[in-house]
């Protein structure tokens, strides 16, 4: 039996230990904010934070998350008002919005690690997250805004 915490709540799994954390979260736990985009850690849509580090849940198995603390977009802030979330809304970042949960989790992890990233650091840190609508200019501006206080 694998046990892990998601957004502060304990979950257990006695199925295939190789099941990816992504499908565990989405299909077994039933939280759908974390998205499937590629399944190969190429697009970042499935990004969650595990013990303060942004990871791709699509290539992380449930067993790798055993005993760990996982935060998804639903758990980033109790009222959805994390500085990154607020900045996202202020800048009107999203178009279709599908990649944005992953983008926001990546940005939140970046700011935990580096509270005042330069524009180059933002671009580098966020370049693992694809936005097919092409909201990059606004994502960059929103991360910058979040880092300087919304």
């Amino acid at each position, binding site marked *: 039996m694998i046990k892990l915490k998601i957004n502060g709540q304990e979950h257990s799994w006695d199925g295939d230990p190789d099941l990816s954390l992504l499908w565990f979260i989405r299909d077994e736990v039933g939280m759908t904010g974390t*998205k499937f985009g*590629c399944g190969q850690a*190429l697009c970042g849509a499935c990004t969650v934070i595990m013990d303060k580090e942004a990871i791709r849940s699509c290539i992380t198995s449930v067993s790798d998350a055993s005993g760990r603390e996982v935060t998804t977009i639903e758990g980033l802030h109790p009222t959805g008002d994390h500085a990154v979330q607020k900045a996202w809304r202020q800048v009107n970042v999203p178009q*279709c919005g599908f990649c944005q949960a992953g983008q926001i989790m990546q940005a939140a992890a970046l700011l935990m690690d580096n509270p005042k990233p330069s524009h180059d650091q933002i671009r580098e840190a966020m370049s693992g997250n694809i936005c097919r609508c092409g909201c990059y200019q606004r994502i960059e501006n929103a991360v910058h805004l979040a880092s300087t206080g919304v």
Partner: protein
Amino acid sequence: MNIIAAPPRLRGFERHVIKVENVSRRSILKGLGIAGSFVLAAPIMSRPALAAYKTGAGEMPHGVVVDPRVFVAVAPDGIVTIVAHRSEMGTGVRTSLPLVVAEEMEADWSRVKVQQAHGDEVRYGNQDTDGSRSTRHYLVPMRQIGASARAMLESAAAKRLGVPVAEVKASNHEVVHAASGRRIGFGDLAADAAKESVPSISSLKLKDPKDFRYLGKGEISIVDLRDITTGAAQYGADVRLPGMKYAVITRPPVTGGKLVSFDGAEAMKVSGVEKVMEVKGWPWPSKFQPLGGVAVIARNTGAAIKGRDALKIVWDDGANAKYDSVAYRAELEEATRKPGLVVRKEGDVDAALKSADKVITGEYYAPHLAHVSMEPPVAVADVKGDKAEIWAPVQSPGGTREDVAKTLGIPEDNVTINVTLLGGGFGRKSKCDYALEAALLSKELGAPVKVQWTREDDVQHDFLHTVSVERIEAGLDKNGKVIAWRHRSAAPSIGSTFGPGAVHQLGLELGMGFVDMPFEIANVQCENPEAVAHTRIGWFRSVSNIPRAFAIQSMVGELAHATGRDQKDMLLELIGSPRILKLDSVKDYWNNGEPYDSYPIDTARLRRAVELVAEKGEWGRSVPKGHGLGIAVHRSFVSYIATIVEVAVDDKGKLTVPRVDTAIDCGTYINPERIQSQIEGTAIMGLSLAKYGEITFKDGKVQQKNFDDFPVVRMDEAPLVTNVYIVPPGPDTPPSGVGEPGVPPFAPALTNAIFAATGKRIRALPIGKQLET
């Protein structure tokens, strides 16, 4: 002269391709179901929209419905519910059209809820969300709907107050009687207003635009913004039903291939896998019908994928097993070196080319592209007996309903299509094959089922953007004036997806920047040689405008270089005098489905877009060594867009884009902030297709699988800044497209910039490694 006949007008692009039988539906129509609401059970009135201009909206399947009882509900608590009947895939349409209704009815946006319509075109009118047409077809109808609701509320208030209706006025969610200072909130009026008759359209008074609170301002964020940032937004992939099964399907690797046999024993051993079953397929081509294959059903998607990996399958690859992109490109090139079907002819191009002092020839290649919306195709179906309910991210809710009904052999009235948010669309989600797969599986399983496409499925079984060779010969006289223009375009047609034997392009494809080439040249001939399709061809954001803008605007750059002129000056000289293009020799010019009187090709607007971007984008500014500026303009979706790209190419051939400037003339608009976001996004998509975009075939199979071998631009290579300038519309300028037209001019502006920076002319997309030294 050979002129290709335009096909009949069909659903969206599709109905320009093939005749779909008109399935009659019983109209079971309900109000919005809000207790005491303003909208009650009501018959549907399809009424023509009155406007200063005409659009093609009425020609779309099921036309336009202008009825406040269908689109608006006012609850006793004052909450106004407005229906969004178009699909939201990132353009903001789910916000902007309801905002138009709210504006006209004087509703306070903070007390408005938006409700997504089911797929039901008898009730709502056409719902095909493609062709960049939502705003241009619905701005006026939505204003009329709002104005009707306002008139009904005012009439109810006047009766209540015992005053003439002329003395009351709706204002910010209440109706005010200025003389007495009395005011009644919309909620209080809901029940009475519901009893008012719907005013005639000719009696409606639309607001004076100077009184607009919302339209044209860009101050209202999209309604889903908070939910998107908290993970609460519901996309197709996020639908969960009690007892729902998870399915993935393996499909024939070659278009038109068939399943011979399969062995699911190993798949069944995978933990969580519950069933392995065949999925019915249709012979190619069959529009949007499923390709068939083998489905693995499991308790979660991960188990289904793992089970699928363990399947052993024998395929019959069929007639397209030799499709090879290298050989096919050579075939297309060969085809454009010979005469083809003439689709436009002015003057005598052969004689003019013969007499020309100089002939510049350019052969331009643009490959297949995959859409790769961030949300891969996905659908949930729950089929019980002769009833089906679907939850899916579809651009064509009405068409999906028709296709599900036909596929299951049940009446359309028994099919409910719930339209979720779309995690991107770009034309892919106009084709509902994934919803049909889910419907077939749910029927067989007797349980709700979600069919999830993996990214590999998406890349390998897309309805791809076509592949084309565009060959242009331009003849110059001794003064450097262009006197002859022959353009041959060879590309497999979207028509090939709808039936066998399509070898020529359709009117809609010819009309995308090819036969409507706007230059003032005495001798012009456009020819369309034959091309046979070997895979499913579909429409990709901006469609055939991509290769046409690339070819034509590259040729402008080549002509500028050949004659020693500035690119922008050359472009303006070719566009020529301000005039309305006549296109007399083009039979049934498509014009994006719009009447030519309302939406002519106006070279003054084309020039203005070029001049505006040149001014604001500081055309001609000095740039550092290794940098270059390129410009391009293109009219598509009846909008006019010009782009300047600044590129930097380092000594290893690595390119970066420091700056992009784009001017868009899209006529009257609703939300400039969303126009800006669309144009910012099309710069990224344009850069992606220019740098990387290429799907290739070998032995009939797509060679790419995922974002590693079909890359798209990431943030570290995005333009450092993209500036957008919107041409201020005239008072009666009809609205035109925004979602797509930013794409076409980007690639040629970039490759013209690369030429300016390096002297290297890119004639084949993608740029790939062509600049590497």
